[in-house]
């Protein structure tokens, strides 16, 4: 078991954003979380990654309790994420965006930084090489010195995923990676996600609105509505679940 969520419940003030969320995630799985806007999908990512601290329940990642840990510690354990609205370090170059994510692997003290002595050069060169290798894998190496805000939208998405992978995660959380993409781009993205999954031996949780993408690649789907899990199962089961249709289309709707 890679990640286990046990009765996770989270309140924002009096509002119950997530109630009794459970998940058993095996290594290598690709699980989708879908649901209407405001269903609590992104909140679950924020709870896993320690942006919020869940009111109740526990997340066990390879046996380690995540609730109460700071975001950066959780990243060190091997969980990386992307954001719904791309959050690149806009003023920094493409290379630096990835270089930063290599952070856990660089070891020198602030004192060494002040004088650029000792292992400084060695460690920096190694990090730059690694970052460039990763950019090459993602076909971004030509943009290495470009300020990241100048990249076209699709490449910004790709860079954000590359950056997340630079932290060497075991579990990758993708928050609406297909947002703003056309059907053709979504097809490419599906291949891309399958490919990084194999190449980097990842377990993936995917939040998505684009049914084409979710139904196409997820092995298992959980459906949230108003914070509660209303359905769970294989893509085919979800598609015909009356509760899901009701949540998305309203009561009495038929397809």
């Amino acid at each position, binding site marked *: 078991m890679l990640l286990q969520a046990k009765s996770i419940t989270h309140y924002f003030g009096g509002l119950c954003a997530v109630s009794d969320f459970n998940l058993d995630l095996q290594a290598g799985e690709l699980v989708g979380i879908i649901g209407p806007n405001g269903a609590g999908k992104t909140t679950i990512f924020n709870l896993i990654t320690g*942006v919020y601290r869940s009111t109740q329940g526990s997340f066990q990642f390879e046996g380690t309790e995540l609730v109460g840990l700071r975001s950066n510690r959780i990243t060190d354990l091997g969980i990386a994420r992307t954001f719904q609205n791309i959050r690149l370090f806009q003023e920094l170059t493409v290379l630096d965006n990835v270089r930063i994510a290599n952070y856990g692997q660089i070891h020198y003290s602030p004192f060494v930084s002040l004088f650029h002595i000792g292992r400084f050069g060695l460690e920096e060169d190694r990090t730059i090489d690694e970052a460039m290798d990763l950019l090459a894998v993602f076909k971004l190496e030509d943009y290495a010195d470009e300020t990241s805000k100048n990249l076209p939208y699709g490449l910004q998405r790709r860079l954000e995923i590359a950056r997340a992978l630079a932290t060497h995660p075991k579990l990758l959380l993708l928050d609406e990676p297909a947002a703003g993409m056309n059907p053709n781009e979504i097809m490419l993205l599906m291949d891309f996600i399958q490919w990084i999954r194999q190449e980097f031996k990842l377990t993936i949780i995917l939040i998505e609105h684009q049914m084409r993408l979710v139904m196409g690649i997820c092995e298992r789907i959980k459906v949230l509505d108003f914070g509660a899990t209303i359905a769970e199962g294989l893509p085919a089961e979800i598609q015909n679940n009356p509760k899901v249709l009701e949540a998305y289309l309203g009561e009495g709707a038929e397809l």
Partner: protein
Amino acid sequence: MNKKQIVSSSLLLIAIILLALLPLMTKKNSTINLVILLLLYMTLASSWNILGGYTGQTNLGHAAFFGIGSLITRLLWIGGIPFSIAFLAGGIGAVALALLIGIPAFKLRGVYFAIGTLALAQILNLTVSNIFPEMSYNPNLADYQLMPRYYLFLVLAILTIGSAYFLVNSKWGLGMMAVREGEDAAESLGISALKHKLLALSVSAFFAGLVGGAFAYYHVSYYLSMPFGPEWTFDPMMMAYIGGTGTIIGPIIGAVFFVGLKQFLVWNVGEYHLIIFGTLFILIVLFLPGGLVEAWNKSRRLLQSRTGQKKNRVVPIT
């Protein structure tokens, strides 16, 4: 090293040599005093920039660190302790004070740090002026020499700017900039925002404290609360903005520009220079948030695209 780096490092070397030889070139104390003021401001603005420009945390109480450094150094030194020890104690005292305000304030996000530092400087200003209402005099006036003071300020400015340069070109500096660009994203990549903010704050306060100590060594007589005054926060901050925050050269250019313009305006329009500076600051923040450095880069880009050399991408001077 490429051509650009050779040019800029030789320019830097020439500037340092000229500054080092300045006392041989002029016998006028007024010139030396003016350059001391310039070096002091460069140090303050550069140290402010480490936290404010590179880490994105607005420190509205830099005077607190400058002031505490000068206070500690002055009291110890006048009290008979060797200057070098008193000087170092001032820097360390400033770091201690910085951590005292930084640790609680940085646990919260948003404006708490800005408000906290603003309040800290004001509280210290009032407290120190109540505890030490008398003017502080240098008792050994007979031994007073300007030259050691000048070189202390020069070395300190070089040390501060050099440290800032080395720090921001390291993984710690990269982390600081990541925190500035987006705290959530930085933390999601394993960067501790708190650690980086505290590091930037400590380095920033350390050099502010040291230059406070140099100030205490330099001034013959002043009120001990004077270095806590808000102008020691806002003038250096304005210099960083005028030159360009988040760049190494920005605060240096800003300090030269600020001191030069101030001299000029004080001679010509007297007290009205405050109005002009206020207006200038607002205009720069509104229309040129990257300061003179950005203006320079932009105009070069414009010039290059006019002359059709689009291939040569402009590397921003940092």
